[in-house]
Every structure is written in C-alpha cells, then in structure tokens.
C-alpha cells in the first residue's frame, strides 16, 4: 500500500524508516536520499537487490547492515536478475502456499549505479525487463564509477573530466555524449519509465509509487549528484540538483507504456548549462577559451532534447 501523505517532508522523511542512517556513504551523497524516499513511499514488504557500487559497499559491511528489509547483493551486473529470481520464487511459493504470509503484498526493487546500469549490467537489466518480471529498477545516476574513484561510464556527459577520460592540454575530457538510457528502457515497452531527481522530492515519491503500483518491469533513472567526483561542496547537493533540473541537463519526465510521455517539471526560469557546469570542478577546464565550444555544444543538445520531449508530450505518440 502506498503512503498517501506526501505533503509534509518532515513527516514523510521519518515515515516507516527501513533504511538506517549509519551507512558509510560520503556526506552529501544523494544516494541515501533517493533510497530512503523509495523505502518511505510504501508500506509493502520490500525485497531489494543492489548491484556492486557505492550504495552496496556502504550499506552492508559485515557485521553491519543498513537494510531493515530483505536485501541481496550478488555482483556488479546482476541486481535485476537477482530480484527477478526472487520474484519468480515468490510466484512459485504463492501458488504452492509455502509463504509465511501468503497474502502480504511484496514489492521487488533493484538499485544500480550508472556504471552497472548503463554499462556492465545493461544486458541483465534488458533481459529482466524483457521477461516482464514485476519489479522496479532504480538507477542512481552519478555519471561515473564513483566507487572506484571516478572513471568514465557511458552515462558520463561529454566534456566532463574523469580518471579514464581526462581533460588535459590536448583533451577537453570525455568525447562522447551520454547514453540515452531512459529512451532505451522505454523502447523495451516497459509499462513505466521515468527520470526523477531528489530536489523534486514530491514528483520523485509519486513516480516511485507509480512504479511500485504498476504491474511489470519499471525503470527509473534518478539524478544523484556526487560531491566527491563532480567536485562541489557536500552541503550543496540539493542546490546542484536544482541547477541540473533547471538547466534541463536532467529533465524530469515519465513515459508510460513506451509512448505516453509526460513532463513532470517545467522550470519557471530555465538557466543556462554554463551555470550548472560552472558549479562543478569536473567541468572547470571547459571554461578555458579553447574548450568553450563544448559548453555551447552541450547547450545546443539540451535545447534540442527539451524541444524533442515537449513535441513528444504534445503529440501523445
């Protein structure tokens, strides 16, 4: 059952707390906000799986665990498959009547970072979604392999510097554009796909609830600013997220049944990507005269994508 009262953040944030605060994520990491919000938006029993990554290594270091619900981690790539196996077992045992409580509703959720979602676990996620398991996959997208010290992933935006796509005297950082994972998952025909952000917490809670209530595989890409690798002050996480959503670097929208696109947040004052990039150390080199053209290119891409989203929303196709 979904929690209906999402009007008051204080009340919501302390509701039904099944994710303990004593984890070792960096101060200022958005992962825990997103995870807590998911777990607080439902009263149903939760089976959660996590790919290897920051969330996993920071929340289940033996003999401790932050998870006051069923939780499993296998490897870097297979959280979607682990949870689909558990979901299949739930079906089998429900049929046979061997569950402790045969009628209690159970939701299945997988978490992965962008490295495990966009790159190494891409096939496992695609397979689980194609098979139609009843689960929600949430990507905690911080646009790099933060757990191993900031390497590029296919979610890293063009122009960002990472330890494996370095900016230097002959390089402006990563050369390739970010993979459009939301579109790819929508193309799977998943019944609910969305991109959400922790600064727009009401929209995020509603999106999570929609995904959990939707039967079948759902995919949500969440923006999770990484103070350590994006290089900003840990106290500014939500401020950076505001810049991300208001510059439309991360538009907030959902796609239902692979085609019905709804924009969930329209900034009153759209800001330039320059303001968003200027607030982070990973883009610092782009402000040199020889790299300025990359900022212009990103702005152009963002404008075009926003235009595309609005046209799709309007066309209802």
């Amino acid at each position: 059952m979904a929690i209906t009262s999402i009007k008051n953040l204080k009340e919501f944030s302390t509701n039904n707390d099944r994710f303990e605060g004593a984890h070792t994520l960096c101060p200022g990491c958005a992962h825990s906000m997103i995870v807590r919000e998911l777990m607080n938006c439902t009263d149903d029993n939760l089976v959660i799986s996590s790919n290897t990554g920051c969330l996993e290594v920071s929340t289940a270091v033996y003999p401790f665990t932050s998870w006051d619900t069923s939780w499993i981690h296998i490897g870097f790539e297979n959280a979607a498959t682990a949870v689909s196996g558990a979901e299949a077992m739930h079906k089998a045992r429900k049929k046979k009547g061997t569950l402790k409580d045969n009628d209690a509703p159970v939701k299945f959720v997988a978490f992965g970072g962008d490295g495990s979602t966009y790159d190494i676990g891409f096939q496992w996620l695609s397979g689980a979604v194609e098979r139609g398991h009843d689960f929600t996959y949430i990507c905690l997208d911080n646009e790099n392999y933060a757990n191993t010290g900031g390497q590029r992933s296919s979610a890293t935006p063009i122009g960002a510097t990472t330890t494996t796509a370095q900016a230097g005297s002959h390089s402006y950082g990563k050369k390739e554009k970010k993979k459009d994972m939301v579109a790819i998952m929508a193309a799977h025909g998943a019944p609910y796909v969305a991109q959400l952000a922790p600064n727009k917490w009401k929209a995020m809670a509603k999106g999570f609830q929609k995904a959990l209530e939707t039967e079948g595989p759902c995919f949500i890409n969440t923006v999770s600013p990484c103070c350590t690798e994006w290089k900003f002050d840990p106290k500014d996480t939500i401020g950076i997220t505001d810049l991300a959503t208001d510059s439309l670097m991360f538009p907030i929208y959902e796609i239902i049944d692979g085609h019905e696109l709804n924009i969930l947040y329209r900034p009153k004052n759209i800001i330039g990507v320059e303001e968003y990039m200027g607030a982070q150390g990973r883009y610092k080199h782009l402000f040199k005269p020889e790299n300025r053209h990359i900022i212009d290119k990103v702005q152009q891409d963002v404008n075009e994508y926003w235009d595309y989203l609005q046209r799709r929303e309007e066309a209802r196709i």
Partner: protein
Amino acid sequence: MAEKYDLQEREVWDGNFAASQALRQAQVDVVAAYPITPSTPIVENYGSYVANGYIDGEFVMVESEHAAMSGCVGASAAGGRVSTATSSQGFALMTEVLYQASGMRLPIVLNVVNRALASPLNVRGDHADMYLGRDSGWIQLDAFNAQEAYDLALCAFRIGEHHDVRLPVMVHQDGFITSHTAQNVYPLSDEVAYNFVGDFKPVDDMLDFSRPVTYGAQTEEDWHFEHKARQHKALMDSRPIIDEIFADFEKVSGRKYNRVESYDMEDAEVAIVALGTTVETARVAAKELRAEEGIKAGVVAIRCFRPFPFDMVRDSLENVKSVAVLDRSSPGGAMGAFFNEVSAALYTTPNRPLVTNFIYGLGGRDFSISEAKRIFKEQKAHADAGHITTDIQQFSGLRGPHLGFFQTKRG
C-alpha cells in the same frame, strides 16, 4: 497440485532426460536457465513439465548463463528449491556467480553436462568445465551413466538442503556419452522420490519479512578469511552427511553409492583412477585383463570430486604398486590437476605407489577398452621394474608423435 506422470518400473532414458525427471520428482520451484549443448534438454524438459502441469514451478528463461545462476541465487535466497543445468562455455560464464552462490550458502543443484572449453570450439565431452568448478565451494558429484545422473540429482537436493550442509551441489555427467545415450534407468515412484528428497525447509528466507536478512555483504581483511574458512569447514563436514544420505538412498532404491567407488581393488597390483564414463571403460578393461593375462588390475573412481575424499583415495590405493591417474582436461602447463590431488594423497602412505599421469579424451576423443588395457600393462611394467619406466605425464590417444613430460628419479 501437479498432474500425475506415468512411469514404468524400467525406463529407457538418456542422462539428460534422467536428470530432468529428478527435477520433476523433487518439484523444483524455480529453474532459471539458458540453453547450451549438450545440457539443453534438461531445462527444456523442466519447461515442458511446467507447461503441462507436471510441476507447480516457475521456468525463467534468461539471457545468459551468468544471468541463469544469478536468477538461481535470487530465487534460492527467496526460500525455495532451485535447480538449473549448463555445460562448457555456459559454465565458464556462470563461474563468477558460482562462487557467490556457495559463499551465500545457497543449496542450488546444478546439473553439469561436461563439455570441453574453447578455443578451439568443441561441443563434445571432456572435464574442463568440471575442473573449472573445483575451487568454487560447491559439492561436486560425478555420475558415470544415466541411472546415476538421476539418482545423484535426487541425492543432491537432500545433501545441499541439509541444514548442517547448506551448500550448492553440482551433479556431473559426461556430454553426449551419458547425456545423449539411451540406457535402462530404474526410476523411483514419484511418491518415494519426493519423500526421499523431502519438503524444502528454508533458512534465512528473504520472503519471511518478520526477520529481514542481508545477503551478499562486504567483508575485508577483518572477516573475509573467517568466512572462507567456515565455508571450507562446511564442505569438509558434509562428508559424513553425504555418506548418510547415500545410505538412505540405498534403503529406497537398493543402489549403493560411495564417495569413492572401488572395483576389483581387493588384490589389485595396478590401478586406474578416473572420472565419468571412463570408469566403466576401465572396469571392462580390468576384468578382461585379469581373465586374459592374469594382471591384477582394478579401478578407483571418484563419485564425490568435492569435497575431495583425500583419505578414502589414499586408503583405496595404498596397497597398489602402480597407479595411472587419468585427467580428461588440458593440464595447461602443469601435471593434471586430478593427478596432483591423487598423488598428494598417496604421498602419505607408507609404501608410496608409483603414480603416472595420462591426459586423454580431450574434446570427446574416444577412450577405448584397448587403450585402457595398454595403460594397465604399462603400470604392470612399472610395478615389475620398481620405478616408472616412461614419462610421468603422457598424452593418450593423441595424433602424431609421442608427447610426454618428466622422468622419475626413483629408478
């Protein structure tokens, strides 16, 4: 409630069909699988039993073997009976998750239809995949024919799910020679088979929300070693439980299994130690040689490859003069792995028999009775000379010039 399946007292089944019937009778809850030759029919059959109501289970056809074992891990942690099958490259792709399954102490039963590992690509049987699993923390049982593939699969559920064991179990059979050869198989009735296996009794059930569980935690230098040591101890401690379950199985089937099987070993002077279908070839050769030439030949076969029956291997071979250990896997720049293990066991005996190593049958190359006889005769020559008279490691049945390595310093 599952539909009734008609069984004859004697069936003609190949090894794959036999294994799948064990899965049906054990009423496996979830099979997550990916097809690969020659193991595919095992999971195809499971799917068809589900489709026709003979099993109340879920058949999850995933997109790779890595995902197959990942799905099995998730399903097993969710508190039910889980099984799958694979071979060769599929086994190799699964390997990462095999270690995770055993580390989480999940009693998954994996039917491995042994097949060579590429490159070059080869679909025929050798033991490269079986060897690849030997450090994975799984119990490994070895069937030499279709009957045993069925019997051992039933035993595997009992062993793995035993609360003092809680380990995953592989049941190996040889690709094609066992998996695709129709043989007489005497199945148990559904009732007797299910009662032997028993209901699944979950431990640390992810679907029991009154007691949340965390699977797959992180440990570093502070606790990892203790976890791995306990896992090794659990494997070692499973030995008497495997013996008990084999004894129980004899009560319901009349068929007796031992972790080490000895044939004609009471007075044997020379012996072959082998795995898989080769055991039956060597047994015929030993019998014929005894009748034809009076050579006291015997065969020692490993039924339980992991945990390795170090003491039983030693005890069964300590009075023999010369032993040939047959490795059906490319040794990759060393003595055969099986040879090394048997030799280590024999090193602790007072008389230390001579031990030689044969690499044979790779990629499904036939291993004949006459070749087994030749190997026995060579052992007899070593025994008579009192030392190894050939290279210690030799390739058997290889085209072209002789290939062998290392000589003894005992002669």
